[in-house]
């Protein structure tokens, strides 16, 4: 009896050794690779919830695989686990497709926002390069550009969530730039102000026609000096303005170029800036405005009204302290085309669509 039991036991052990171990289904390693690929592709960022569900299923399936592996090899049956992993692979494939769609969507959104902000930046950049609106504005624009470059780098690396975050920096700096130029720009968007400037311009041209005289019209937004003879445009010259030239002059040393109706009161043939035509700033209206501003506390009591505003040479690209500058050969020509008493009207803009009106926020000016 004992011998029989021993023989059966030996036979069993022999058979156990002969039985070929069932291999782990290939779906397991495929699923592991798939999960890693999805992770690398950013599934935890773009499809957080579905990816977490996928991972939970993977963990559960791995747990079941561990259970099977823990069984004695005679009793191991990988089929149910294999089916689970096959199902998981399908789920992963679906997730992969969704991920591509989601990434494409995010990429398009980033690209669209980036292009729109680039356009806005380019416009402000171009405008502030030709029209000096303060170094602060340009510093914000430079920072916006740096942030835009960062977005481009992140976008190339397909880091869309980080790109979206960085786009906020671009928006913040562009908003700061717009805010910084708003006090100047708002006047160029104000339809009432433009109507007033337009009226001054029309009156100047009509006066030239009716009285058969020569008149000068300076349009700041266009950086142009227009010479009218008998109501007809005779000549157009490019001009340079003050460091703060697009603002209306309010006081001495504000570097602004005055706006209003003036006259040439003297001609200087030997100016430091080749030739010069002095205008009668401050006129009566400027003096009244200056006093009103002081009374209202808008200007310090110690402030002076300023003066010595000229149309002179020195170049049309230089920044003045409030004067209007032309190239030397052009002031030479203008100098002899006008006389003392020639009307000079200086306006901001005569068109509602001007270079400054497309930027900043509209806050109508109360001045003038």
């Amino acid at each position, binding site marked *: 009896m004992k011998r029989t039991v021993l023989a059966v036991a030996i036979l069993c052990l022999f058979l156990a050794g002969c039985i070929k171990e069932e291999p782990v289904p290939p779906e397991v390693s495929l699923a592991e690779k798939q999960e890693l690929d999805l992770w690398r592709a950013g599934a935890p960022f773009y499809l957080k919830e579905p990816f977490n569900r996928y991972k939970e299923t993977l963990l559960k399936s791995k747990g079941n695989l561990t259970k099977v592996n823990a069984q004695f090899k005679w009793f191991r049956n990988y089929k149910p686990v294999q089916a689970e992993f096959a199902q998981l692979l399908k789920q992963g494939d679906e997730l992969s497709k969704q991920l591509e769609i989601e990434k494409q969507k995010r990429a398009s959104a980033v690209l669209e926002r980036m292009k729109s902000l680039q356009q806005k930046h380019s416009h402000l950049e171009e405008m502030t390069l030709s029209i000096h609106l303060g170094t602060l504005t340009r510093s914000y624009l*430079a920072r916006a550009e740096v942030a835009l470059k960062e977005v481009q780098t992140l976008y190339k690396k397909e880091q869309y969530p980080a790109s979206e975050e960085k786009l906020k920096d671009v928006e913040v700096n562009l908003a700061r730039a717009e805010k910084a130029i708003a006090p100047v720009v708002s006047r160029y968007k104000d339809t009432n102000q433009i109507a007033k400037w337009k009226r001054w311009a029309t009156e100047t041209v009509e006066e030239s026609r009716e009285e058969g005289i020569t008149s000068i019209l300076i349009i700041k937004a266009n950086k142009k000096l227009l010479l009218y003879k008998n109501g007809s445009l005779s000549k157009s010259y490019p001009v340079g303005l003050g460091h703060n030239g697009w603002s209306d002059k309010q006081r001495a040393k504000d570097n602004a170029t005055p706006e209003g109706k003036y006259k040439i009161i003297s001609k200087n043939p030997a100016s430091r800036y080749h030739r010069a035509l002095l205008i009668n700033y401050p006129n009566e209206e400027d003096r009244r405005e200056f006093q009103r501003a002081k009374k209202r506390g808008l200007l310090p009591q110690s402030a002076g009204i300023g003066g010595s505003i000229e149309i002179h040479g*020195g170049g049309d690209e230089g*920044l003045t302290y409030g004067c209007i500058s032309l190239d030397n050969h052009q002031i030479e020509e203008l100098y002899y085309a006008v006389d003392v008493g020639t009307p000079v009207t200086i306006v901001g803009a005569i068109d509602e669509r001007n270079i400054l009106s497309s930027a900043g926020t509209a806050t109508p000016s109360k001045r003038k």
Partner: protein
Amino acid sequence: MKRVRLIVVGLMVLAFLVGCASKPTKEIEDTTAAVKAVIAEGLGKYAPEDEKKLNDSLAAIDAELKVQDGKTFKSFDKTKQMLADLSKMAADMKAALPAKKEAAKQAAVAAMDAAKAAADEAKNLLAKAPKGKGTAADIEALKGDVKGVDDALVEVQGLIDKEDYAAAVTKANAVKEKAAAVAAQITQAMEKAKKK
């Protein structure tokens, strides 16, 4: 009587077997703490795949523990081996982390230095540009650009201080590019002014 004795001996053997297989609680706690520590040191920032490996291994150990918990005859030998492997992995990653951090820091510092050099060049050029009345409007505007570049450089330093080296490199490269563009614009503006 003989049978009763046999049953008692069997139960004792069973109790012995079950009792022997106790959960490696201390190893689990130690390994989890080691993993958390290396992650807290910023592993994800410098080697995100390593962080994932650690988390996945922890999850695998958890799954193995659940399997053993569900058994009558528990065996934690495999779990212990997995814990030992994970502890070693975490220790190796922790040991390699300072070098990775240092390399990332050096890359960020080098990028910032290059950006600073480009900004300095723009500043030097600007210092040579004419000042006061008659200054070209574009040169005046470019002063603001140089200020913006300087401000952005301060942000790069801030990122380095926060050990966000990857972001620092991206920003420094962007600053460098902008500074070079500003320098080119200043040169162009000065040449234009000379010609006038």
